[in-house]
């Protein structure tokens, strides 16, 4: 098991390295750091601008390959992800932003998977019941609501609720109240309150695909021969579902987790924008708008790492569930 996980992790590590470096070249090609200095007064010459960019490894006069090598050696030897065109170190932005986005994405993914799979299992074992029909319709509609619309809709609901109640029941902006709250527990509660709406948004847009696929998979498994055999050996329907059908139908669900992480990242970018969270998603938009090559690459690396973590967890789950996979 351990060797299997290590082998998978090495594969993903290669993927992360390739993706990050590819993004570096794409970013250097499409982003022009000089434009940050063009609008400054007094007007700088191109040479002055290039001189200003040189200490950050962004000098456009040197070749892309040498800039890339410089950046790569810094990342590998000192874990220094470089500077923005205006000299702000990328490393100073990363830790708190990773924390903010990480908690949002993690809680969002876990809640979506748990809620979606539970709903799928419940409705599949009661096919065409009232609950099945209602949740099915709801899920098809939610599947088609863009993250932008659902996020803004939640903001509208929360604002009218707050106005109705007369006090701020749900916070609609930021990861915590500006200026901070006194005391440890009030602070924790304050952060949790801010987390509610963005998490609800990510969950609402994320759970649907799990619900629909898990329902379809379990329905297929319920009609399989091995479930009938299990019933014939004297198991009750609930036991047969739990021990045989459910276990088999969870395998494809587990393997597909890795492929949903990019979508979750996209959802997180929009959610952070709407709810005003200073996380990696917002940072990515800022870096692109400010032509910050190093910052954009760092966000891409973060995305690749999140995908890899999801994929490795999915692999472990598959091994645990699927008796056909032998790893030792």
């Amino acid at each position, binding site marked *: 098991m351990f060797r299997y996980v290590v082998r998978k992790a090495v594969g993903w590590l290669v993927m992360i390295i390739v*993706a990050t470096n590819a993004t570096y070249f794409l970013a250097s090609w499409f*982003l022009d750091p000089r434009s940050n200095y063009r609008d400054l007064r007094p007007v700088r010459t191109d040479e002055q601008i290039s001189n200003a960019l040189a200490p950050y490894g962004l000098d456009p006069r040197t070749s892309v390959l040498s800039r890339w090598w410089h950046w790569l050696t810094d990342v590998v030897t000192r874990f220094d992800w470089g500077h923005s065109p205006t000299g702000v170190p990328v490393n100073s932005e990363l830790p708190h932003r990773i924390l903010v986005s990480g908690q949002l994405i993690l809680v969002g993914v876990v809640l979506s998977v748990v809620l979606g799979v539970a709903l799928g299992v419940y409705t599949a074992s009661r096919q065409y019941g009232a609950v099945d029909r209602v949740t099915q319709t709801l899920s098809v*509609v939610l599947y088609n609501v*863009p993250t932008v619309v659902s996020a803004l809709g939640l903001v509208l609901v929360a604002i009218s609720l707050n106005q109705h109640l007369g006090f701020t029941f749900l916070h609609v902006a930021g990861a915590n109240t500006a200026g901070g709250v006194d005391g440890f527990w009030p602070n924790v509660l304050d952060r949790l309150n801010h987390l509610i709406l963005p998490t609800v948004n990510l969950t609402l847009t994320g759970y649907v695909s799990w619900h629909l696929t898990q329902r379809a998979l379990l329905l297929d498994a319920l009609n399989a021969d091995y479930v009938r055999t299990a019933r014939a050996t004297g198991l009750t329907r609930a036991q047969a579902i739990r021990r045989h059908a459910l276990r088999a139908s969870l395998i494809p669900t587990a393997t597909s987790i890795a492929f949903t992480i*990019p979508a979750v990242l996209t959802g997180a970018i*929009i959610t952070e924008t709407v709810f005003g969270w200073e996380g990696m998603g917002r940072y990515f938009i800022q870096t692109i708008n400010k032509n910050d090559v190093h910052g954009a690459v760092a966000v*891409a690396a973060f995305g690749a790492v999140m995908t890899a973590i999801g994929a490795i967890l999915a692999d472990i789950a598959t091994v645990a569930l699927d008796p056909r996979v032998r790893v030792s």
Partner: protein
Amino acid sequence: MTDVGGDVLGGAVGAPSLRLGRSRLYLRRFARNRGALVGVVILVLLIGYAAIGTVFTPWSWSDQDFLALTQEPSRLHPLGTNQGGNDMLAQTVHGLQRSLVIALSVSVLTLLIAVVVGAGAAYLGGRVERMTLMVIHFLLVVPSFLILALVSNQVAGDWRVLIVVLTLFGWMFTARVVWSVSTSLRERDYVLAAELMGVSSWRIVVRHIIPHLGALLIVNFTLGVVTTVLSETSLSFLGFGVKTPDVSLGSLLADGAGTISSAPWLFASPAALLVLLTVSMTLIGDGLRDALDPTSTAGGRG
């Protein structure tokens, strides 16, 4: 002899029944699905709105009415106006046109690429197949939205460029589905027969494998429209897609987002159009999937 032949034939067909043409059968199965019909009605209404919606307002989408800035829906402006005095009805008509054109063309293009790559990889097999799958899997797990934003922000603003960019990063998932279905098609007898007759690989892919993917492709086309509308909206909302002065549903949403509590009508009309568009396409896609299912036995009579 002729009589006997006729009898045998009659016995094979069974009870005299109205034999339906294939397209009639599909149409009948599709029409029986109430959700799919609702989807078609909504889609036709939306296309009609995009085509002739401007007759409801004297304003063009780029006209500015400086006497009515950020006004609620009224008789003069049925859907209100935005901060610049643009009539929202004209703007949503134009935005819907943009979003529809982008979504339809990207879906067609991605489908073409996906079919050629997926079916080609499955039929050619061996090293080509392994390499193609590696590339597809790599592109699937790379946070492609980030790259999409990176590329489209620098070159876009122009919706035609956006079509190219969305196509380049949108074909992988369909290609993988096409590949997995084609792997079973390549084992069929008629493919072997064609091979033995000396038909070239390329010709086998085009003439024998791709036509059998028909149903799958139609369904994937409708779902592709949904996916494209969603990503175009996200990009434009974040400011990386269609940009001012041009207008799409996504950029209209972005405009409305800032004033959501003071001027909710700026957000409501593009949001409603967007959800109607994606819901109708999903309903149609589901209906088509059921109607084109070759294992289905429904729809013979009545």
